[in-house]
């Protein structure tokens, strides 16, 4: 059992969720309510990580983060170390490939709030921020929790992009899914089995929470 890999996975998942959910909420809200040209294409862009092979996504992210790109160079000059094959690079990649998992549940949740309810909040004297905090957020809450759980679960389980992006550096980029792959390659059946079982239980719990929440929302 590679506890350090499991810990790294959880750390990556927590940071991804923490950073991505607020950004995702903003994107979801814009997509839900703002009339915009080319909305379908924006939605397609957000959904792209769902259909793109992780190798393709990983390849592009790797080129974007590498020493030859402006992003890689900027990061190198600030942090003093390369972005690719680092935890921060992995985190950035994780935020990109989790985009649909974070945005879509929240977008559905915001879309379900009638325009008139938001207008009623403004007419009741609530500022845009208060209306968001006191009306929109509580109403969209199940969707936000869904996003959070899906993002965490998906980050913990992601394999292809992590492999492409981070390689297999213990304590830096070796996540639990990589560790399982590593153990299988090394014919360490028992370690692979233990870690797989743990990931299975974790994923089931996460998805269970999402379904329980959406069930409650349907009945409310």
């Amino acid at each position, binding site marked *: 059992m590679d506890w350090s890999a499991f810990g790294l996975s959880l750390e990556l998942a927590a940071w991804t969720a923490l950073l991505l959910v607020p950004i995702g909420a903003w994107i979801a809200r814009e997509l839900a309510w703002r009339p915009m040209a080319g909305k379908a294409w924006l939605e397609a862009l957000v959904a792209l990580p769902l259909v793109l092979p992780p190798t393709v996504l990983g390849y592009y992210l790797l080129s974007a983060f590498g020493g030859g790109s402006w992003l890689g160079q900027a990061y190198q000059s600030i942090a003093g170390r390369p972005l690719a094959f680092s935890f921060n690079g992995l985190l950035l990649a994780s935020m990109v490939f989790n985009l649909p998992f974070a945005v879509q549940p929240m977008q559905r949740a915001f879309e379900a709030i*009638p325009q*008139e*309810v938001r*207008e*009623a*909040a*403004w*007419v*009741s*004297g*609530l*500022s845009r921020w*208060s209306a968001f905090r*006191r*009306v929109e957020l*509580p*109403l969209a809450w199940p969707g936000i929790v869904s996003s959070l759980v899906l993002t965490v679960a998906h980050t913990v389980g992601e394999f292809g992009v992590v492999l492409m992006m981070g390689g297999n550096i213990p304590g830096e980029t070796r996540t639990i899914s990589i560790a399982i792959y590593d153990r299988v390659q090394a014919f360490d059946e028992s370690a692979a089995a233990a870690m797989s079982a743990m990931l299975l239980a974790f994923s089931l719990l996460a998805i269970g929470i999402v379904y329980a929440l959406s069930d409650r929302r349907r009945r*409310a």
Partner: protein
Amino acid sequence: MSAGLYARLEQEAPIPLAAELHCAPGELAALVGPSGSGKTTILRCIAGLHRPRAGEVRCNGALWYDGSIDLPPQERRVGLVFQSYALFPHLSALGNVMLAAGHVPPGQREAKGRALLELVNLAGLEGRRPAQLSGGQQQRVALARALARDPEALLLDEPFAAVDRVTRRKLQRELALLRERVRIPIVLVTHDLDEARVLADSMTILHHGKTLQRGVPGEILARPCSAEVARLLDLGNLFEAVILEQRPESNRTLLEWSGTTLEARHAPGFSPGERVSWVVAPEYVILHRRDRPSQGERENPVQGIVEECVSMGETTSVAIRVGDQPWLTMNIATHHARRNQLAAGQTATVTLLAEGIHIMQKDGAQRGRAARA
């Protein structure tokens, strides 16, 4: 024009608007028109939820909108009751009302919320969520929430459309009582003429976003300014005729209609030869008795064929065809119809009381003459 609410709104799209509205403190002004006539858009413009292309919105002397200034809804002290009520589904009735009382010190919000719920007869239901309330109760919460802001104007968008008849009567009565307690301008959007007649002090008729006529409901119903308004008000007995002669000295205008000359109440501003529209309310159409001719039969006697005779309880609606004109309808007591053995196909003679004949401009005629009743 400093006290009360004043709005003048103009735009071409998405719904054309050329409307003007004035509502004094304590006045209840009804906006009446068919669906799509821009009634809701006008309320949204006043509340700051929709920006017209041009115009002006003022309330108690404060400028809310004038093309360059456009206060957001938060800065306009209006209470708006949405047609769908738009209650906050995650909050209790009390929570809904308290959320709109943000201008009150936090310690006093609950007391204010409870007082308002009591005002709308919802005491005891403070803790219920909207989903646990009936349509009428939801409407009351919406009204209490609109009042929680201590609004300078109250806007009601078809507030009784979604409730059953009995509840509607009850809520209408409550609104009439409420008016006595909150002396602010109240604008009521409705497509129900009876509702407007019962509740409103003034009525504005809208069509395609245009103000066609403003005035006291009874006055508008008796004297619509044009055939268009008469049709929107669903007034029957709408005909066309030609002005023959003006006799202001005897308070009469003579009309040529269907080969006969009709005397009507004097309608100034029309010249002989002009084509006009006219209406006569069914209560001004009097059936001549066959057995015993009575007085007044010399006044505009008109003969026609009974086309339809429909008894509905105590009254019978009789439709008569005069020449090639549309049907002339009147309501008479059912026993009266029986005594006269009125039936389809028979000849009948009626009197059109001159006092009840209202002359107005024809469809498509130049507007502006009688824009105000």
